[in-house]
């Protein structure tokens, strides 16, 4: 993947992730993690090579098909990206509203998800009235609202203290156990080492490691 300014962000990366996996994506800043994620949600199209997600060939995908792909992929970020003037309920419902879901579905799905992430008591709070962990739970509920096949978490614990981070990881594991594939980009060594899941390590745009049940650093 080469950007218009000539910078090669990713090169010769061959990765296949099976449905239902829980995978960590690690590497220093600028290694290509963000580009990797952007390719998966087709925010970018690779300049060479091919990306297939949930049965879609992203290279050949028409513009009009992109929204359908995005509904198959939930995504959460380090900075939560909640709408500050909407309540927890409204933030989650927003993802259904803007995709034209019927009201009945909204009334059914939103409480289900708030229960799953443990926020049903905070449904009518604004993001500013929530802790960081609660805001990230709201973001996760929103990401899951279309029942996606894949959940991508880009540094989801980057702004959270260790205890809260673990709570979020527990939630992601729970979601993974319900059948959703989880890809988590992180710098959090402690979590990666404790979890012993598959690790993809990027460095300078190259895939330098792809190991099952691995740690954050290479172990010899």
């Amino acid at each position, binding site marked *: 993947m080469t950007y218009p300014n000539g910078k090669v962000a990713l090169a010769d990366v061959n990765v296949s992730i099976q449905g239902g996996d829980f995978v960590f994506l690690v590497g220093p800043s600028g290694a290509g993690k963000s580009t990797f994620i952007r390719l998966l949600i087709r925010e970018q199209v690779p300049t060479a090579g091919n990306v297939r997600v949930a049965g879609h060939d992203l290279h050949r995908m028409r513009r009009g098909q992109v*929204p359908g792909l*995005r509904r198959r992929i939930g995504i959460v970020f380090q900075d939560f990206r909640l709408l500050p003037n909407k309540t927890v309920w409204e933030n989650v419902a*927003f993802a259904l509203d803007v995709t034209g879901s019927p009201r009945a579905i909204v009334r059914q799905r939103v409480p289900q998800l708030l229960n799953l992430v443990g926020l049903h008591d905070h449904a009518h709070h604004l993001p500013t009235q929530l802790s960081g962990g609660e805001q990230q739970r709201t973001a996760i509920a*929103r990401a899951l609202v279309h029942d996606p096949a894949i959940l991508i978490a880009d540094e989801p614990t980057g702004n959270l203290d260790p205890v809260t981070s673990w709570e979020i990881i527990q939630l992601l594991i729970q979601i993974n156990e319900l059948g959703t594939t989880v890809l988590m980009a992180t710098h959090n060594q402690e979590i990666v080492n404790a979890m012993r899941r598959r690790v993809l390590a990027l460095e300078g745009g190259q895939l330098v490691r792809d190991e099952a049940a691995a740690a954050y650093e290479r172990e010899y």
Partner: protein
Amino acid sequence: MPFVRFIGFSIIRAWQGFWRNAMMSLAATATVILMLVLLSALLIVITGLNSGLEFIESKVAVTAQLEDGLTDAAVATLTREVEAVPGVASVEYVSPAAAMRRLEESYRETGQELDTGGATIRLFASLEISLDDPDASGTVSAELTDDPRVERVLTKQAEYDTLLGIINVIRTVGLVGIGLVGLTVLFMIINTIRIAVYSRANEIEIMRLVGASDSFIRWPFILEGILCGLVGALVTIVLVAVVWDPIQPAMVTIFQMPTAVSARFLTTLSVLLLAVGLGVGALGSWISVRSYLSAAR
């Protein structure tokens, strides 16, 4: 049902967007009103002058003042000859005595009495020729000018041409002016919607990430522009309706002609104002959304 949800969603968001940046939306609406008021004024004046033109056209006539001393038979011959000219609808003979009575009458209408101071005024006998084709005025008058039985030919052609010239100038100047104001309106709406798009950048990003289709992202903004046009058109229609009755006699006074515009034209004008308002709103916001939202994906 999904379509109903889409429409409802778009209208609600357009309404929220309109008031979110109320100053800008109202400024854009004000320029729409300015443009539509100018357009209404131009159309009313031109329609009025056109009906004045029709009035003159219906009166377009050639008056041939006859030489003295023609016999009744000679007059009858001349009348038949003129009636045979193509474009002539009818010919009426006005005797000197009848011309005198008309003159006295016209004085009486202005509240005066014709006072000749005892002198005898002898007026010309004349043929008043009305035409069913205004363009025939030229040929008829040319033929009569050379006729030895005719002293002088008078036509209304000059008056007609002058008014037509004035109408054309007003129409051209008016259209250019409205075109310039229209461009301003377009830029105002483009800018308003651009600001609306920027102020919702976070929402748009989230909409994209959760898989909202392009139409869900765009239509609220396009409707917001249409809303500026709609409100502008409605305000203008109310303004025009309020001043409608007072301006009719005012126009007659200004132009010294029967320039009254029928009330039916008010309906036509309202429909036109709505169409132009909605059109310019939709066009402006469509341009804005097209350039700013496509670039972002």
